[in-house]
């Protein structure tokens, strides 16, 4: 590697590093800082008063309720899918991998729109659901479905490469040592992927709470009822209520920072284990 680092143009190297740092600062750091600056523009009292608003509280509550269901479901699904893909050979494996990735390549608006097409008033099952008195679009259920679809790949994507790299050697050894299925899962498979799973869940959670596009399509923007935090931020912003908008936004930004911090911590603390996992 050393030979690939050019020795001579020291000044040029600094120029490139400086340009990258400047770009990072402009594109990432500045917006992040501005969220907090704007949120506290009228002082801490105004900042905290923003959370007293019942609509804001409803938005926070709804967001938590959605994440609380969507994240565990997608964690379970991701675990099962990664386990299938990494530990077994079966027909259609490539198709499953592609399907898992689909939400990544799909515009979130489409991820919301498909539910409207299926369950909306003019959708496939709309009239039937209407007769049964079941409403999905413009309700919690619709928001949940849209969120699940958007955050579908996060846990699976985090686990699949790790589990594929680890292979099935340890499980096979456990079988020869007399371990049953439950012992193998709890003592061998899960401990080997625990930190990747935690990380995947964090990413999934951050996206579940922060999703805008898909949720926007199915929510109907009913304040205090179907507005999640990102939707509420937009509504407040459109009302020229900047302090409140940025206050709620600061919560989401804080969530992003916490996620990042935990990720860094995990990588620092368990880097050797992750590295040994990659080596095999």
């Amino acid at each position, binding site marked *: 590697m050393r030979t690939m680092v050019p020795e001579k143009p020291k000044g040029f190297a600094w120029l490139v590093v400086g340009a990258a740092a400047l770009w990072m600062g402009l594109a990432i750091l500045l917006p992040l800082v501005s969220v907090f600056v704007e949120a506290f523009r009228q002082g801490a009292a105004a900042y905290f008063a923003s959370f007293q608003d019942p609509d804001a509280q409803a938005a926070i509550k709804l967001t938590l309720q959605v994440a609380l269901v969507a994240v565990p479901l997608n964690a379970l699904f991701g675990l099962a899918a990664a386990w299938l893909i990494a530990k077994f050979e079966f027909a259609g494996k490539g198709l499953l991998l592609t399907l898992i990735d689909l939400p990544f390549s799909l515009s979130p608006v489409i991820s919301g729109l498909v539910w409207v097409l299926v369950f909306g008033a003019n959708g496939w099952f709309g009239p039937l659901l209407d007769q049964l008195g079941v409403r999905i679009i413009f309700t919690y259920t619709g928001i949940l479905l849209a969120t699940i679809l958007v955050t579908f790949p996060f846990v699976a994507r985090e686990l699949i490469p790790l589990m594929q790299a680890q292979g099935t050697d340890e499980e096979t*050894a456990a079988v020869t040592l007399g371990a049953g299925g439950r012992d193998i899962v709890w003592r061998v498979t899960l401990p080997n992927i625990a930190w990747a799973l935690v990380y995947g869940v964090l990413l999934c959670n951050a996206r579940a709470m922060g999703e805008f596009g898909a949720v926007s399509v199915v929510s109907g923007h009913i304040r205090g009822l179907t507005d999640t935090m990102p939707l509420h931020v937009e509504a407040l912003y459109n009302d020229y209520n900047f302090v409140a908008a940025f206050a709620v936004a600061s919560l989401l930004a804080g969530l992003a920072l916490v996620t990042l911090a935990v990720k860094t911590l995990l990588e620092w603390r368990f880097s050797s284990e992750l590295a040994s996992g990659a080596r095999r």
Partner: protein
Amino acid sequence: MSGVSQASSHPARAAEDGGRAQGLAVKDVAKRFGRFPALKGVSISAEPGEFLALLGPSGSGKTTLLRIIAGLETPDAGTVFLQSEDFLAQTPRERRVGMVFQSYALFRHMTVAKNIAFGLEVLPRAQRPRKAEIKARVKQLLALIQLEDLGGRYPRQLSGGQQQRVALARALAIEPRVLLLDEPFGALDAKVRKELRYWLRRIHDETGVTTIFVTHDQEEAMDLADRVAVLKEGRIEQVGAPEALHEHPASAFVFDFLGESNRLPCHLSGDLAAFDGFSAPAVVAPGASGNTTAWFRPHETELSGEGPGLGVTVTGVHNQGGLVRVDLSAADGSTFEVDLPRVSRPTGLGVGAQLKLRPRRVFVFADAPVP
């Protein structure tokens, strides 16, 4: 450790049982993977306390056979018995077979001690030894593999050779009735391989556990095992003691696989192979006759400046420690290798030299293709 001492009395117990104890018996086992036949009807048995090597090139089915014995694969046909127990009707746990893998397959998130204890800790509650008992056994096994002080380390902190010793201790912890080793030293460098080879044999002799060892390294197999089974394309080509395989190989394949070989057309009459103007004593396998191929080893070949023999030209001379390996080619383009002790190296041996080649002893087989 109680397990080790118990197991070491095993051969004695087998002797008391008289002829009744048959060890492990594999019969007519066949297995296909899709359209690829991995095993085409293999029968082999291992006596109690025996060290048996399965030797063959990759794809010969040796690992598949091992995995069937361990319960990791199910054969399409055939039976596997240990004594009077039908192995195929048992789960891997019931079989109590220890297995060591080429990749070590240690549990990476567990310490060495935890790895060794694993097989005991997953036992059903009724059979599981007490905590203190498990700890004591782990300690004894750590002593057996000479890693007393490394119980608290993680596998990634150990060298390859140390990891494989831990894998062996882990397999021995369950007091296996049969110990299976799948190319255990394949990922190690030559020096460590050799050390571990003798060490493994010592452990086997101490514990007395019936051991089946898979390898593609003939030297390893011949060096370690009481008996060697040579596999080829899903069939057993020959089973025998290393000495017997060397002295009476059953086929050209076995002869060729067990070491480097030279070939020369000959006419067989009795136990003499006649060549053009000279002859050599032949070890004749059943069914071989007439015009056939003589096979011989580089170290059982003479080179001289004159006299009877095949005219050859030296194309290369390589010094290999105490030996000199000489590459030769004949007028018809066929090539030969000859190993000479350095001390008896003829004068004037250099590339381009014209010499006479004469095998001291040849082997003749029924299946030998005429080159």
